[in-house]
């Protein structure tokens, strides 16, 4: 991160893996793939296509080869009907020469055409997927640099969905648009041949083609809203099922099955209507688009037959004209498609650029230095902070000094700003006023990685990744050996239950794995931070879901670990607070009382209230944990994606090249 954030935006991706990472960055993998060679142009003044151009040009070798081969293949195709016509006219009708020569030439051309089309198709798809690879990595790399204020604003669900559909629509347009252009240019050649045979007939044969184009455009214009409406209504149905599943106890308790069925019935009826609407639009356009070229064939028969009878054209021209008409049909249809694709791609690109144009806000200052040999002296100096400009300060005139090795508990009502101070210490956010100092150095003058490497923070919401428990604990220290991992787990009171799992430390957990209880997750999260062995430790409500009895059993280990370490505990549970040397009561973003537990008990009424509230909170979490026993509240995750739909769309276009 050190190096990443020192670099200007546009070349962040350039060999991010070639630079030596800072010593605070755990890296346990090596890249098997090269980083994208180019990035999206950061100049916002440029058009979306111009901005995307560098990414396309990074693959210009295969891309241009593909276009050239596509052109070659199509030109050969255009020759075929003409050769066929000549063969029939010369040999069969007029008895000049033999068929052998024509057969050989056509066979050779057929093989060449097949080969050229294979190369063009394969290279084009390769380009498309390479661009997708680049875009996904560019976006991900950028996302990984963005700061918390950004993540507070956006919904991850939206980001994921956008990352999927928007990248696809941009990538498809960027690669297939030029290729469709090539096809259209070949269509011009074919049209030229037709003109060379007979001008009026060529014009008559082409008569329906513009309609094919316009109808295609019109159809897509009408189709898109319907297909999105269908998507929206599918989502409605899914929401009802989702709620019904989550609220199944309520539904059953109140015997509300009929009510639920009715509400699903309504959503299904609305969905049915939109599907019928979709069918009606297709029913109007598809037959027209498909039959118009046939109309051209009929016109050729009528008019061409008349011309042939008058010996203005050879009879075989009827055949080649028929074949050309069929050949021209696809480019005209696609021309309409490309316009719609362009509109969609522009909108999609806009949404992608919106992410890429977000600057990271919490970054290393120029000349930032690493925090080394941290003693663990922490000082908040008149700190002020608000999450955004419209809101009042969450932390307001916060002063606190924690000398090295001291353990301090921060207590306060919900919303009093406790967790925020912890986040400021780890520099998840930058203060809006005052300073946060570690070893008397402003954290903003230190590198981000070194601050975060020295401040170990256990968050209230213990997020685990879908990897083994071992890897989850070793998240911050991938080099740790199993003994160290077990030691950390034991200190956090997690070893026992981990060993009881079927696969022990190799059990995969998280969204896509085994579901652990809140308390178990918290213990793993504590082990994860303990393993890093940071000189400054922050426990942000980190034991709230752990059973009081279990918590007491790990206090011994925790106390040992806190020895010689600066520790900030955010808690509301009496037993947790007892770990601290000193208790601070926070309210409205500042410290209002400072002392030992019994001192505060005696002098500050608010303190007692906050603790009483905490006791209830505990009971709730305990009960929650109990009621979830044997249940798996975690969603199934991504195991059941059905993405063929997208593939069909792609293949439809790819296939016509």
């Amino acid at each position, binding site marked *: 991160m050190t190096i990443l954030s020192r670099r200007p935006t546009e070349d962040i991706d350039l060999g991010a893996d070639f630079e030596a990472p800072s010593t605070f960055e755990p890296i346990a993998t090596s890249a098997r793939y090269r980083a994208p060679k180019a990035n999206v142009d950061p100049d916002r003044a440029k058009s979306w296509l111009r901005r995307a151009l560098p990414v396309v040009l990074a693959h210009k070798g295969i891309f241009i080869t593909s276009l050239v081969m596509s052109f070659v293949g199509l030109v050969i195709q255009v020759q075929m009907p003409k050769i066929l016509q000549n063969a029939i006219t010369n040999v069969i009708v007029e008895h000049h020469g033999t068929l052998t020569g024509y057969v050989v030439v056509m066979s050779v051309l057929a093989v060449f055409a097949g080969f050229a089309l294979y190369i063009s198709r394969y290279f084009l798809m390769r380009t498309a997927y390479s661009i997708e690879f680049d875009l996904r990595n560019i976006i991900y790399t950028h996302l990984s640099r963005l700061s918390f204020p950004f993540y507070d604003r956006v919904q991850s669900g939206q980001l994921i969905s956008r990352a999927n559909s928007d990248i696809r629509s941009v990538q498809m347009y960027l690669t297939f648009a030029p290729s469709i252009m090539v096809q259209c240019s070949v269509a011009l050649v074919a049209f030229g041949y037709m003109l060379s045979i007979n001008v009026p007939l060529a014009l008559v044969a082409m008569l329906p083609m513009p309609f094919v184009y316009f109808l295609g455009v019109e159809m897509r214009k009408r189709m898109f809203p319907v297909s999105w409406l269908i998507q929206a209504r599918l989502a409605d149905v899914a929401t009802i099922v989702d709620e019904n599943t989550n609220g199944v106890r309520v539904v059953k*308790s109140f015997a509300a099955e009929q009510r639920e069925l009715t509400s699903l019935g309504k959503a299904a009826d609305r969905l049915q209507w939109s599907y019928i609407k979709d069918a009606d639009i297709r029913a109007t356009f598809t037959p027209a688009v498909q039959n118009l070229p046939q109309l051209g064939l009929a016109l050729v028969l009528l008019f061409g037959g008349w011309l042939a009878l008058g010996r203005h054209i050879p009879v075989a021209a009827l055949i080649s004209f028929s074949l050309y008409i069929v050949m021209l049909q696809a480019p005209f249809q696609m021309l309409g498609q490309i316009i719609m694709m362009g509109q969609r791609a522009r909108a999609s690109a806009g949404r992608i650029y919106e992410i890429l144009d977000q600057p990271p806000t919490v970054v290393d200052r120029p000349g930032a230095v690493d925090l080394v040999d941290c003693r663990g002296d922490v000082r908040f100096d008149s700190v002020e902070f608000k999450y955004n400009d419209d809101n009042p300060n969450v932390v307001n005139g916060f002063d606190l000094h924690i000398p090295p090795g001291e353990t301090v508990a921060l207590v306060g009502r919900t919303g009093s700003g406790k967790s925020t101070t912890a986040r400021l210490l780890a520099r998840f956010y930058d203060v809006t006023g005052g300073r946060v100092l570690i070893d008397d150095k402003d954290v903003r003058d230190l590198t981000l990685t070194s601050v975060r490497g020295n401040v170990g923070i256990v968050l209230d919401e213990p997020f685990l990744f879908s990897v083994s428990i071992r890897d989850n604990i070793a998240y911050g220290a991938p080099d740790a050996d199993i003994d160290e991992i077990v030691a950390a787990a034991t200190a956090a009171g997690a070893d026992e239950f981990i060993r009881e799992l079927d696969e022990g430390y190799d059990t995969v957990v998280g969204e896509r794995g085994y579901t652990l209880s809140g308390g178990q997750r918290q213990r793993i999260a504590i082990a994860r931070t303990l393993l890093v062995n940071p000189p400054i430790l922050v426990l942000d409500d980190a034991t709230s879901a752990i059973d009081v009895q279990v918590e007491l059993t790990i206090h011994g280990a925790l106390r040992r670990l806190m020895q010689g370490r600066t520790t900030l505990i955010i808690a509301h549970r009496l037993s947790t607070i007892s770990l601290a040397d000193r208790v601070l009561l926070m309210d409205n973003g500042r410290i209002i009382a400072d002392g030992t537990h019994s001192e505060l008990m005696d002098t500050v009424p608010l303190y007692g209230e906050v603790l009483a509230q905490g006791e209830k909170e505990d009971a709730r979490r305990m009960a929650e944990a109990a009621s979830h026993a044997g249940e798996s509240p975690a969603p199934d995750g991504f195991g059941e994606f059905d993405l063929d739909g997208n593939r069909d769309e792609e293949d439809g276009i790819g296939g016509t090249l």
Partner: protein
Amino acid sequence: MGWGGGGGWGGGGMMGGPPGGGRGSPGNPGSGLPFAGIPSELQDGVDKLLVKEPSHGEPKARFSYQMSDDDKKEMTLRSLIVQHWGLGVWALVFVCLVSLANQAGPLLIDKGTNAIQGALTTGHTSGVYGKIALYAFLFFVAIGISGTAQHSQVRTTGRLAARVMNDLRIKIFSHLQRLSLDFYTEEKQGVIMSRMTADIENLQQLLQDGLAQFAVQGLTMIAITVILFALNVKLALITCLAIVPVLTALSLWFRAASERGYQRVRDGIANVLADLSESLHGVRVVTAHNRQRHNVLHHRNVVGSYRDANFYTAQIAAIYGPGTQMLSFLGQVVLLGVGGTMVLHHQLSLGALTAFILYLNRFLQPITLLVQQYNMYQQGHASITKLNTLLVQNPSVPEDDGAPDLPKIEGNIHYDHVTFGYDPETPVLHDIDVTINPGETVAFVGPTGAGKSTMAKLVTRFYDPTEGHVLIDGHDIRHYSLQSLRRQLGVVPQEPFLFAGTVRDNIAFARENVSDDEVREAIRMVGLMEVVERLPEEIDTVVHERGQSLSSGERQLIALARAFVAHPRVLVLDEATSNLDLLSESKIEAALDLLLEGRTAILIAHRLTTAMKADRIVVVDEGGIIEVGSHEQLVDAGGRYAEMYETWISHAEGATAA
């Protein structure tokens, strides 16, 4: 027909359905991807569409715990369509018309070419003009028939698909409603979701277009084969022998390879999205541990594998598409060589050769299309199998055939030597025998996992006892209809679940036809009127998903109001232990007092303060009843309860002494 630009590969996608239609749209919500809303640039179009939408009226589907005989039969594609046989028959008629009318073109061109060729050879051209005009006219008519029939076919199959899908949604959802709680606790939610979404949606394309396409392509192949053989048996045989085996081999290879490829692609994208999702959801942990750069590399590897999978499918597609195209060129070469020689030897007319050349592509196209669409058929089949597996699951809490309604209950509840285990092998309740008298409030207390919630679940028949009976007013509740039992019980769960809907809908949930006055009355009873009046649309305010616009105290109160509206004879309350503010707390206590009045009540108490309210306390531990008695009795007895009380007192004093 797809010679030039088309090839078989593109035909399906380009013509079968527009991109974005059906399953083609991005972000298919049913599959787990969040639906990101309609993009702003399309909102106008959608709005215009919505203006035209009629009111659909009340859905007709009625719920019953009993499965009808129809429901019990195994579901197949055929059985689904047969329900709408009228539409099915029409669809078939239109499909036949389309397939036949489509073949007229080359045949007429063949006739025309022959006539012209003949006229030119003989020199008698005058009469032929009329003939040509007639052929052209017939061609126009065929196009008209084909277009009209196709129009009707798309409309018909579209309706057929929409109705079958609607049936299917109702059928599957009804069955999900029938299934008991154990199904919901054992099955992952994602799986339940995908039965109702992805698995059903998989059939959409097949029904709306796929089956008709199969029929059209199949009929086309038959028709063309017949025509070709009618034109010239020898050339037809040679053409078939030269092309069909190679094409079949290529197609079989393609099908197998693309199936493998798409599986890889599906796994690949699932991994990409899962990795992205975890990185975003776990961003705080990622940042706290400086793992960004590691993750960038890891994500690159994941995206790279996905790219490789795509390269693989690209390779396959790039071989198959141009491969069939090359084959069709070579087919023309064969026709030219063999057919041309035959024409030279007067074994074949020039028109017939023309027809052969024109029919060749029409003959190849169905094969390639069928191959590509086979995937769709297979997926549809797999979906139906999965749905059938769901439909044969029987509720573990069944309703007897023709079970009578439970008469109006007084409220005497008797656990008659009840033993129960979620897994029958390992009982969590052992031989529970206790009676609760009408109008009595009984609290179940005990440590977490002791079985107190489970006891309550047996009264509501969320589960049935493994041994023994639960009797209400002496009736074994197993022999009465579930609805009649549950309607007389009021359940307030621990975590109040609010549905996305209005406040009114959430409160009136308990019964049908609840008047607004009753809803308001219930709101008043729980002391929530002030809060509701402050909401923008009063009781019509939509509460957001999971009730985020209300505080947890307010949500508790809504859940209580819901129970009020139900007028239950027996109340089962799993104590809400959320972190409530003091005001909500006192409101809830007051509402509870009202609600308990004159009712039999079971309180699952997590706090001893609540337990103390009860007439009697049942102390449960390790699946058995340890003590029963009033608070005073139990404290005096000096048993387990007294011990718990002691601990609690000292703890509470520690916390709240000041």
